[in-house]
């Protein structure tokens, strides 16, 4: 099931730039694709991700809104019912809660509750995660909450190639997609395909590193930290197999189970709070599917069960560090 990202050109660009390219290519491809959000047009977005798009596509297709999250998401839902494809931005993923009715009821359920008569091709772009002391209401990782409400797809790209390829898939998907872009990755560079038709499919995990000692599932910013940990552990004879699910809905549990059957140990690393995070769901699914393959309990290395403090040092102490991942992996390997 796993697929490596194909990179024909090897061109290296940033994660934010990759998202910008995906938006531009999809808007060129299909006139029905349009965008709205706060400060996305004239300013190019608070993180600069939409820079230049209003210049190319005009202020009708790249719309600056008032501060009105219920309209940004609910309006996108209504627009989708009438034949266009809205891609909207909430400035921070935390603002899911200011548009909760529109996201968890209207986007997720409109098709279902009306007997399948409508499709809801909406993408909500959500800058997520910890970066530079943004505070308790601007730093959360809420992907698990999105995962818990049936009817929403959830993407969590960890690399520029995935950011571009998954966003293009999201825009072409007839279902609502919550697209969690990690703020700490926007400037991180990596190889990205030049071809406008290179898409990364949903529901296909990426094996970011092959290994035999244990399986480690991680998303977003945590993928790079787990890969760093793997580099430190390799000389000590511990080989991590690192799996990035890329989308949590649909979830490629088959790749995780297949890996656990090979390594016999599983650790899940996520930035979101530990309690009832998606790590708990993956742990439960793996023990249902591969209990007898496990030589040790499933471990989780997660964010703290606290709001996030604003001080950048305290904030970093609330999410898994590379050192913590190394320590946890050594302990799990010793069981």
């Amino acid at each position, binding site marked *: 099931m796993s697929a490596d990202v194909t990179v024909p050109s090897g061109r290296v660009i940033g994660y934010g730039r990759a998202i910008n390219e995906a938006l531009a290519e999809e808007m060129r491809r299909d006139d029905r694709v349009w965008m709205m959000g706060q400060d996305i047009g004239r300013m190019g977005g608070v993180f600069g991700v939409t820079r230049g798009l209003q210049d190319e596509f005009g202020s009708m297709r790249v719309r600056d809104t008032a501060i009105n999250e219920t309209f940004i998401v609910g309006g996108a839902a209504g627009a989708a019912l009438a034949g266009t494809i809205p891609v909207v931005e909430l400035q921070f993923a935390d603002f899911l809660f200011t548009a909760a009715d529109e996201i968890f009821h209207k986007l997720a359920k409109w098709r279902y509750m009306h*007997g399948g008569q409508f499709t809801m091709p909406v993408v909500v772009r959500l800058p997520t995660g910890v970066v530079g002391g943004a505070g308790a209401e601007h730093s959360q990782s809420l992907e698990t909450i999105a995962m818990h409400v049936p009817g929403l797809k959830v993407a969590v790209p960890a690399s520029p190639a995935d950011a571009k390829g998954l966003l293009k898939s999201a825009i072409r998907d007839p279902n609502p997609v919550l697209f969690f872009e990690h703020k700490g990755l926007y400037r991180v560079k990596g190889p990205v395909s030049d071809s406008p038709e290179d898409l990364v499919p949903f529901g296909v995990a990426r094996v970011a590193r092959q290994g035999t000692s244990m399986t480690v599932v991680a998303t977003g910013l945590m993928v790079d930290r787990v890969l760093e940990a793997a580099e430190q552990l390799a000389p000590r004879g511990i080989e991590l197999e690192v799996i990035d699910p890329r989308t949590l809905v649909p979830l490629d549990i088959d790749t995780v189970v297949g890996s656990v059957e090979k390594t016999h140990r599983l650790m899940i690393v996520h930035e979101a709070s530990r309690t009832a995070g998606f790590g708990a769901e993956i742990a439960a699914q793996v023990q249902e599917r591969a209990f007898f393959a496990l030589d040790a309990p499933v471990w989780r290395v997660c964010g703290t069960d606290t709001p996030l403090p604003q001080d950048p040092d305290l904030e970093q102490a609330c999410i898994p560090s590379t050192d913590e991942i190394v320590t946890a992996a050594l302990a799990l390997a010793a069981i």
Partner: protein
Amino acid sequence: MSGESTPESASREQTQVEIYRKVVTIRFAELRIRSHVEKEGFGGFWHPGIGQEGLQAGAIAAMRPDDYLYYAHRGLGYAYAKGMDLVELFSDLLGRATGSTRGKGGGTVHFADAEKHVLGQGGTLGSNFVMGAGTAVSSQLLGDDRVTVVFFGDGASGRGTWHEAALQASVWKLPVVWICENNGWALSARFEDQSPTEHVADRAPAYGMPGVIVDGQDAMAVLDATSEAVERARRGEGPTLIEAKTLRIRGHYEGDRQPYRADPVLGDEIPNDPVHRLGEGIPDEVRRTIDAEARQLVEEAFDAALAAPKADTSVIFEDVWA
């Protein structure tokens, strides 16, 4: 007035007859549902729209068939007036497989018909404000010349979604018309206890849009007000807020004894009844024929819905994804 009919007046008379046919059919449908709820121990919550049929059918007569409709939760008049099939509507109400939502959203307040451009309704009041404005963005982008009409009650006018939708719709001059059915009650709360202004329409100027007050018991007056608003929207001049003054004849839901209300309207005498208002000027013979046909249509449709099978449990797993 000479009494001779001009082509224009003939057309208006014809429109009046067509609206009357819809209004009477909706009235019989309301009464049939009420009788079912009273006799059969109905398992849902029916929010009766009786007494408000005139404004519903009158407003929708101002719409083109391809204009978009978001309706409010009181009655099925909107959906029927927009062209939905009565058997489908009754089937939704009764949880039958023949309902437009196949048992998954029907119940009392959700119907939909993509082909008739009836876009459905959310379970949270006021959610249609923002969705309606968004639908109008699509029409503006596609240049398809369609107008979106959003009905809501005076209770829903309190939602913050109204502010966000009205603000953005006016800034972008979106082709949307909002019609408030002000019946004076939001469940147990009186409108005057929820609003600092006498009228909902008083809020319109703050959003740079016209606020129009109309007698909601007069279907033809509602038709005229809505026609003006729809044409304004179609010309690209932006949204309008229409407030149709009406009455809540029954409780919040059928069976609500309204202990909170000192003067509930009881019985079948409807003050300023829109059916009678609309019937004035229509020859008795024509009216009697329409009444009889409407009654028969409703009875047959309700019987057909009652006879239809319940939705199979397999539909639970369908339509989560496209």
